[in-house]
C-alpha cells in the first residue's frame, strides 16, 4: 500500500493571525478511507483546503498529487445554468477533454451514481441528495486517486444520508480512490472509514486515532451491532475530551 496523501507537521496561520491547525501529521494510503471528526471551527475544512492548495500552509510539508485530487464541498456547487450532463462535464472541460469523449465519460458517471434519465435536468429541479450525487459524479469523472469530502451529506435527511453512505462505499470499492472524509456524525465516521482521526479545538491537532475493523462491503445493519456501538462510544468520548473541559 503506497501513501496517497501525507501531512507532516503541518500548520496554518491565516494572515489575520488566526491559527487554524498546528503540527498536523497523518498519511492516507491507497485503499484507505480516513475520516476526520472534530469540534466546529477546529480546522477540518482547512486541512482539505491545504491539501488542494486553496489555502497555503505556513509550516510543515504536504505531499499529494494535486492533478489526481477529487474534492467535494459541503454544498454540491452545481452551476445552476448547466444541466446535470453539462455539470458532470465541467471538470473534463477544464482539462481539455474533447467534446465526444466528455459526453461519454459524463454519461458513464451519471449512470454510476444512479441518475440516468436526469441528464437534461437543471439543478433547481433536483433534490438535495440528487445534487450531491451529481457533485460526486463530477469529481469521479476525473478518476481521482485521492478523493476528499467536506461534510458532503451534512445537509441531508438521515435516510438519504445513509443511502448515500452505502453508495459512496460501493464507489470506494469499485473506483479504487483513497478517501479523506470530514463529518460531524460519529455514526457516519464509524460506518464509512478504515480509520478515524479526532481533532482538538482550534488550533486543530490530531489527538486520537481509531482503526475501524469492519470488513467491506458494510451492510446497513452494521449500525446496530454492539461492536459498532462500542467503537462509536469511544470516538464520541475522545471527541468530547478534545472539545475541551468547557463541555463538562
Amino acid at each position, binding site marked *: 500500500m503506497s501513501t496517497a496523501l501525507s501531512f507532516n507537521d503541518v500548520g496554518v496561520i491565516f494572515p489575520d493571525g488566526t491559527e487554524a491547525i498546528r503540527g498536523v501529521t497523518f498519511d492516507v494510503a491507497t485503499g484507505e478511507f480516513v475520516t476526520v471528526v472534530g469540534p466546529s471551527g477546529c480546522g477540518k475544512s482547512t486541512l482539505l483546503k491545504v491539501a488542494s492548495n486553496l489555502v497555503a500552509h505556513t509550516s510543515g510539508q504536504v505531499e499529494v498529487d494535486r492533478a489526481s485530487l477529487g474534492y467535494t*464541498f459541503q454544498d454540491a456547487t452545481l452551476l445552476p445554468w448547466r444541466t446535470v450532463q453539462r455539470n458532470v462535464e465541467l471538470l473534463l472541460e477544464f*482539462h481539455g477533454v474533447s467534446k465526444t469523449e466528455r459526453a461519454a465519460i459524463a454519461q458513464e458517471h451519471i449512470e454510476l451514481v444512479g441518475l440516468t434519465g436526469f441528464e437534461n435536468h437543471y439543478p*433547481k429541479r433536483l433534490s438535495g441528495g440528487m445534487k450531491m450525487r451529481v457533485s460526486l459524479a463530477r469529481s469521479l469523472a476525473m478518476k481521482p486517486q485521492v478523493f476528499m469530502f467536506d461534510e458532503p451529506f451534512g445537509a441531508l435527511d438521515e435516510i438519504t444520508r445513509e443511502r448515500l453512505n452505502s453508495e459512496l462505499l460501493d464507489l470506494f470499492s469499485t473506483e479504487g480512490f483513497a478517501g479523506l472524509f470530514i463529518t460531524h456524525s460519529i455514526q457516519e465516521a464509524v460506518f464509512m472509514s478504515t480509520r478515524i482521526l479526532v481533532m482538538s479545538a482550534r488550533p486543530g491537532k490530531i489527538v486520537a486515532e481509531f482503526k475501524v475493523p469492519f470488513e467491506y462491503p458494510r451492510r446497513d445493519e452494521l449500525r446496530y451491532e454492539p461492536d459498532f456501538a462500542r467503537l462509536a462510544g469511544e470516538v464520541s468520548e475522545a471527541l468530547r475530551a478534545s472539545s475541551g473541559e468547557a463541555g463538562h
Partner: protein
Amino acid sequence: MSAPPEPSSVRRLLGLAGPPFAVAMGVIGIWYFVSEVALSDGQSFLLPPPHAVFQSGVLDGQHLTELLEGLRATLIVTLVGLTISIILGMSVAILMYQFGWFESTFFPYAIVIQATPIIAIVPLIGVWMGFSFNARVLVVIIISIFPIITNTLFGLKSIDRNFINLFELHSVKGPTRLTKLSLPAALPSIFTGFRISAGLAVVGAIVGEFFFKGGEEKGLGRLISRYQLQLQTEQLIAAIVIASMLGVALFLIVGFASDRLTRSWHTSRRETG
C-alpha cells in the same frame, strides 16, 4: 397547427392583465370626467378628451406620420445609446471586478455621473457637440450607464465563494472563468440593470431632443417641445403616450429576453403553477 391555449393559461393571463386594465379604464373615466364635466368650455384645451387625442393625434394622417417619424428617430437614438451603455458599462464593471484599483479609482466618477442632474449637463454637451446625433446618443449613455455598471458589478461580486474555489482548484482563471462562471452567475443582476437602463435611455433620448432643437432629426422630444409651444394639447398628449409606450415596450422586451435566458435554471424567479 398550434394547439388552442389551455383555459388555465387564459385565466392566468386575465388574472395578470385584469387589474392593470381596470386601472386604465378608471384613469380614462376620470380623464373624461375632468375634460367633459369639470373643465368649462373655455378651459377644455387644457385636457382634451381621450377620443379627441386619438382623433387628431393618431387618426389624422399628417400628425400620425409626424409622430411615427419622431418615434423612429427617438428609437434609433435610444437603441444606439443603450447598446453603447451596455457594452461600455459591462466592460467597466468587469474591469472593476477584476482589478480593485480600477474600481477604487473610477467608481467615484460613476457616482458623479449618476448624481449630476442630466438637465444640467445637456446644455454643455450642446455647446461642445452641437445638436448632432452623437450629442443625443451621449445624453442617453450618461443617463443609462450607471445602473448597468452597478448591477453588473453587484452580480459579479455576489458569486458564491464555493464556485470560485471550484474554479481555482482547477486553475481556471481569466476569460474562461469569466465566460463559464462569472457572467452566467451575474446574468440575472445584469438583466436587472438592462431593464432599469432601457427606461432611462428613452428618457435620455427625449431630453436630448427636447433641448437640441436645431438639429436635423425630428425626435419625439422635439415634437413634444413644439406641441407645447403651440398649445397643441391633443398632439402633445398623443406624443407623451407614445413616448411612454416606447419605454414600456423596451422594458418588456428586455424582461422577455431575460426570462428566455434564465427561466430554465434561475431559482429566485416566481414559480408559476
